[in-house]
């Protein structure tokens, strides 16, 4: 990409090349490369094709939601005994995906991991969109979604309060906080880059963009005092977001674990859910990173090291998840509870057995390929693996929700859950909405933190990165 700014194009120093940044990059060239992705007027037919396809999916989702509002949740496959179907499974899946972004941003920042820099921004965007979509599902699942605000404690004429002892109310607080803090973290990190875009757009004579980015940049000037406070606030946010990440999926797991239902009522649930969240979240980071670096030629910034590190996290979390599966089985048999035992055997050999074995294959068996260095360094293999894991984790969420419910204590109350076309449209529509939001994000905001890349250039030139 040519630099439109004719002044000061000669970088005074260049990155030396390291595992996380290729050599030869300077402050101006990283700025122009990343800002150029956003400020270009021609986004190409590939972006437009993807955007139109995603828009069609969003249209289908809107149609499915409208029909849901007209007819009620009877259009889905849910019934008694399986009153929680795709909607709750999708909710848990999406909120899990929404965990890696904050984990990467916050935990890797606190651990001073250099490989965080080029992937944290889009991973945070991923978090925000995934958590937002997740939040939709419990609301859609309410019989009367227009009363969802009854979860909020506010003085009301009914004179009642939310049920504070209910995990669903805890869930509301967890998701609302997570969304807000993720948005703050993301936006604060964006402010210096928005200022860059304001100045670059001004330089290019793009007046409208200059004003839009200028308003969002809040007048950021990059003064040393501002930077010091900015970095301090950012570090505090990272420290606050770290326990928050762990708490959110813990509370989501309590939606299940607090209920006295075989297969739900288990103390392994909180850590098992958090591990699963990181597992699926890192899988989604790879699913997004690989096409992004290809589409925008970002191989210099998102290197093989980034992908291989994410792959190692996948391997580790795969084992944590496998431990969760083992602990569930062990506890079921060790407890001596016939219902727990039956539920476990039913997972293996019941009507949803094939889904269970497919899940184990996707989440435990196939990820073992990551032990091989060749697989970790093979981009196509990582893309395929990340998609397999995404599917596997969705199946896990589905199984947790459905298998425990479809066999009640009394055989006379047994039943089956079969998803309807509307269930499928809502699931794939939510994926389309995610893609749609992400496409808009890469169109309008820098997908890599420019300011932090400049810092990395300096560290690299000094031989520190």
């Amino acid at each position: 990409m040519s630099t439109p700014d004719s002044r000061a194009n000669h970088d005074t120093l260049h990155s030396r090349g390291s595992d996380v940044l290729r050599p030869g990059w300077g402050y101006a060239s990283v700025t122009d490369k990343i800002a150029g992705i956003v400020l270009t007027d021609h986004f190409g037919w590939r972006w437009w094709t993807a955007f139109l396809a995603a828009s069609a999916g969003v249209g289908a989702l809107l149609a499915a939601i409208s029909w849901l509002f007209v007819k009620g949740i009877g259009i889905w496959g849910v019934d008694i005994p399986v009153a929680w179907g795709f909607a709750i499974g999708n909710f848990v899946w999406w909120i899990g995906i929404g965990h890696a972004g904050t984990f990467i941003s916050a935990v890797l920042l606190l651990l001073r991991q250099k490989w965080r820099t080029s992937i944290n921004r889009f991973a945070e965007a991923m978090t925000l969109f995934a958590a937002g979509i997740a939040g939709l599902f419990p609301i859609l699942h309410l019989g009367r979604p227009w009363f969802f605000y009854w979860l909020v404690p506010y003085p009301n004429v009914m004179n009642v309060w939310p049920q504070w002892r209910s995990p669903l109310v805890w869930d509301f607080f967890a998701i609302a906080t997570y969304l807000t803090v993720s948005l703050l973290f993301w936006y604060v990190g964006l402010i210096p880059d928005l200022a860059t875009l304001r100045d670059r757009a001004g330089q290019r004579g793009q007046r409208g963009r200059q004003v839009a980015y200028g308003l969002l940049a809040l007048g950021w000037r990059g003064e040393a005092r501002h930077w010091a406070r900015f970095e301090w606030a950012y570090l505090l946010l990272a420290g606050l977001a770290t326990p928050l990440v762990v708490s959110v999926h813990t509370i989501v797991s309590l939606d299940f674990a607090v209920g006295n239902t075989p297969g739900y009522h288990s103390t392994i649930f909180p850590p098992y859910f958090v591990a699963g969240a990181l597992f699926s979240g890192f899988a989604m980071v790879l699913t997004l990173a690989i096409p992004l670096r290809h589409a925008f030629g970002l191989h210099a910034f998102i290197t093989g090291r980034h992908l291989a590190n994410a792959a190692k996290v996948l391997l580790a979390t795969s084992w944590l998840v496998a431990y969760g599966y083992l602990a569930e089985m062990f506890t079921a048999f060790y407890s001596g509870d016939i219902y727990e035992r039956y539920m476990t055997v039913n997972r293996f050999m019941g009507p949803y057995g094939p889904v269970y074995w497919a899940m184990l294959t996707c989440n435990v068996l196939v990820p073992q390929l990551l032990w091989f260095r060749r697989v970790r360094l093979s981009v196509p293999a990582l893309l395929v693996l990340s998609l397999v894991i995404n599917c596997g984790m969705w199946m896990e969420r589905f199984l947790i929700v459905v298998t425990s419910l479809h066999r009640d204590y009394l055989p006379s109350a047994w039943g089956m859950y079969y998803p309807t076309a509307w269930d499928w449209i809502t699931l794939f529509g939510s994926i389309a909405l995610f893609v749609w939001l992400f496409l808009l994000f890469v169109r309008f905001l820098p997908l890599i933190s420019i300011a932090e890349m400049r810092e990395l250039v300096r560290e690299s030139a000094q031989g520190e990165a």
Partner: protein
Amino acid sequence: MSEPALYGLLAEFPTADSLCAAARHVREHGYTRVEAYSPFAIEGLDEIIGADKGWIAPLTLLGGLLGGAGTYFLQWYAAVVDYPIDIGGRPLHSWPAFIPATFEITILGAALAAVVTMLVANGLPRLHHPLFEVEEFDLASRNRFFLCLPARDPVFAPGPARDLLAGLHPLLLCEVPA
């Protein structure tokens, strides 16, 4: 002040190290309100120009404490005072069940306090600033480093300030109208 309409003098430098050296130099000449502008956070520069992090950490703590205490109080008040329901003699003040919401709002309060304090301490949002009138200044968000001696600095005098900056061999030296 002979020229009241002056915001300050601005000098442009090519590298982070030259900016740090220049900032140190002018600080040694008694300037206390030195402003240094850079496209990324330069470690140590804040100490050179004498910046402090202000109230961010204490107010973040306060925000967290207020959020947590307020949320706990709300739950206690609702469950014990305003709408007590006796369910099989279970305790009304069931504190373990009140922890999740308390924890979440503690984090929320602290995060909001951190961000708001940072913005207020930085005087943001401030959409316009005299420096934005300097055409070269848009490189401060790309690859150039700027040092500004503001006219409001007690030791500022236009002539000596200009000589001091010129002695540092900046790429550009200009006056910034207020």
